[in-house]
């Protein structure tokens, strides 16, 4: 959210001037009725939905991390929601923000044929409960998010890296991870690497 | 002297060379036939229509590096291809390619030896060939070959039982174990045994497919499952020996099928005098033509059918072929006793 207090950027974050603070989550237009299952959700799991957003036809709800499992269970089991398929789990990294990760669950209902995105915000080491117990298909998807972002999933049956080698250092999809890869220095000595990088950037500015 | 040593030696040289040449050209034939089945051309580059391809293959295989894996059992690893090749070749000793003919005024029989346990000899020698595969899998010290060799030993032993049982029904018909006598028995009976023993023939042929590791029973070398099976770790000439042994075995099975069920060197309807003009074709030619038909079927089957799974293969062997073969044997015996 735009009005959230911005914590100071972590020491190793790139000093990008205009890093966006977070996604734009436009509220639904006033003349658009919210889907019924959202009302049921708010009623059954109180305090679960902190924000509802609507953009180019997609509904998104933001959920506190603590409520994630409750919301997920409700969304799967409530007859008017019936989101039996977790079609995607992914994350977005917003580095300046304290809760830097948006973990996004794209849900789909094969019965009602509707979609919803559920979002939780998580800090770097904050545990996020795994939804693998609710949708078994989330297993690999969460592993990928863990692999790429380092989101701390808890209760995951098999939390290993999936795409990168097991001994890989760093999380490639984070915004402060260089595109060209870490190079050997980062692999062996991340602190020296950061110093070298900062020196280079300073040289660039001068 | 000449009759005792020179002629048999000459015969051995001729048969051995013809076999090896035939085997190499079997490879070309297979590639060509499968290519035609799959609407492509097959080898076309070496010689006109690729007929020199076997030469190129042989040269390539000979000059290839011969690798022995570090942790392999070296002696066994080297012996395995030889063990699989030798039985495939010495079986030809008792296969009759034709009757006794007169060559330069001297009677020459178109077989190396007529042993009175000829059929048993073939079966027993063939049963030793399985060691080549088992040992190759064991000696490679690698998991895929090991799995393949386990499959192979189980498969070959199971199908050997069925095949041997069908042979017994043929022996009952011919009252002899000698290959030459079996052909003569078919001449005397005036009918090829395939028409008297159709069940035995079908079981024999299916068993033959399985014993030579051919599709749809090519599990020990199923490339898609076991990356080449028992010869995964082999290269160069040692690999070539396995390859040659497989094709030599195919020729053996075809020859035995011809001899036992399709009258060997006999022309069609050997007792019908009206078809006497067929005798312009020499007897060994009939034998080769009949064997060739079987070889063609071998290749044809490979181009058409998917592969069985291991357990299905064993089920077919034990629950279908062996009971059928036993039933066939019993019926043959009863009929034999009743008719006399």
């Amino acid at each position, binding site marked *: 959210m735009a009005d959230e207090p911005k914590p100071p950027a972590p020491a190793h974050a790139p000093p990008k001037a205009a890093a966006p603070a977070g996604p734009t989550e436009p509220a639904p237009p006033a003349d658009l009725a919210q889907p019924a299952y959202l009302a049921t959700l708010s009623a059954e799991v109180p305090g679960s939905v902190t924000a509802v957003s609507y953009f180019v036809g997609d509904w998104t709800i933001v959920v506190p991390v603590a409520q994630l499992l409750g919301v997920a269970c409700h969304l799967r089991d409530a007859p008017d929601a019936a989101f039996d398929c977790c079609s995607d789990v992914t994350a977005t990294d917003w580095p300046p923000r304290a809760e830097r990760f948006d973990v996004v669950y794209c849900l789909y209902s094969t019965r009602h044929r509707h979609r919803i995105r559920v979002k939780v915000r998580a800090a770097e080491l904050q545990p996020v409960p795994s939804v693998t117990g609710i949708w078994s298909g989330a297993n690999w998807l969460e592993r990928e998010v863990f692999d790429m972002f380092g989101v701390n999933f808890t209760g995951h049956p098999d939390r290993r890296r999936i795409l990168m080698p097991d001994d890989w250092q760093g999380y490639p999809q984070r915004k402060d991870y260089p595109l060209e890869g870490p190079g050997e220095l980062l692999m062996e000595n991340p602190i020296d690497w950061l110093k070298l990088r900062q020196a280079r950037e300073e040289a660039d500015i001068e | 002297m000449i009759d005792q040593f020179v002629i048999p030696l000459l015969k051995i040289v001729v048969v051995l060379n013809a076999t090896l040449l035939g085997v190499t050209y079997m490879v070309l034939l297979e590639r060509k036939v499968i290519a035609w089945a799959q609407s492509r051309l097959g080898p076309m580059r070496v010689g006109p229509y690729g007929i020199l391809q076997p030469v190129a293959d042989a040269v390539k295989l000979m000059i290839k590096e011969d690798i022995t894996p570090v942790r392999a*059992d070296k002696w*066994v690893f080297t012996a395995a291809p030889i063990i699989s090749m030798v039985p495939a070749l010495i079986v030809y000793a008792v296969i009759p390619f034709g009757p006794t003919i007169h060559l330069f005024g001297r009677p020459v029989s178109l077989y190396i030896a007529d042993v009175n*346990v000829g059929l048993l000899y073939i*079966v*027993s020698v063939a*049963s030793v060939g*399985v060691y080549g595969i*088992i040992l190759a899998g064991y000696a490679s010290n690698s998991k895929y070959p090991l799995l393949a060799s386990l499959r192979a030993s189980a498969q070959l032993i199971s199908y050997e039982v069925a095949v041997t049982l069908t042979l017994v029904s043929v022996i009952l018909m011919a009252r002899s*174990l000698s290959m030459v006598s079996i052909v003569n028995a078919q001449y005397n009976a005036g009918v090829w045994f395939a028409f008297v023993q159709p069940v035995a023939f079908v079981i024999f042929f299916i068993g033959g497919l399985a014993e030579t590791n051919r599709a749809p029973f090519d599990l020990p070398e199923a490339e898609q499952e076991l990356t080449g099976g028992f010869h995964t770790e082999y290269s160069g000439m040692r690999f070539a020996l396995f390859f040659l042994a497989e094709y030599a075995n195919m020729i053996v099975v075809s020859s035995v099928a011809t001899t036992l069920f399709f009258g060997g060197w006999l022309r069609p309807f050997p007792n019908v005098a009206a078809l006497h003009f067929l005798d312009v074709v020499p007897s060994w030619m009939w034998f080769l033509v009949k064997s060739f038909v079987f070889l063609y079927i071998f290749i044809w089957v490979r181009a058409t059918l998917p592969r069985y799974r291991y357990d299905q293969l064993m089920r077919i062997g034990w629950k279908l072929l062996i009971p059928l073969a036993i039933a066939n044997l019993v019926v043959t015996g009863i009929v034999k006793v009743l008719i006399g």
Partner: protein
Amino acid sequence: MGQAIAFYTLAAFILGFAVLVVSTKDTVHSVLFLVLDFLFVAALYVLLGAPFLAAIQVLVYAGGIVVLYLFVVMLVNLKRPPEAHQDPHRRTKLGFGLAVAVLLELGAIATYGMTRTGSPLVVPGTNGPLPGNTEQVGWLLYTSYLIPFEIASMLLLVAMIGAIVLAKREL
């Protein structure tokens, strides 16, 4: 003369391989020597004018039974540490005693056979024309040796059923 040379050569090979079978460390090699041994025994049968027996020897023993041995040996992990071979229950003396007893028995049989005239296997004056070796074996099995033959087949059947009962996880 030639026959004698052939026999003693074969016998030497048979004995040599037999020794190798029991003395080789690697079990698979040991099984392989056993196969070679069987093949030479088959050759001995040929020398004695029994081609049928020779073929059966190769087919059943070399080609069938030993393959199963090999199968088992390859599957069962026999590469144990050396101390496992030091069996506390080893009874060397008993083993030697048994070996000597068997040797004596064999010697006794041999001398008994030498003193008797005529081979016990060939039944003299059998009725019916029996031209070939195969036919002779068949005839003997179904006349003089019918009961041992049947008992042997019963034994094999029992062994087969027993193996199935032991190996099958649930019946």
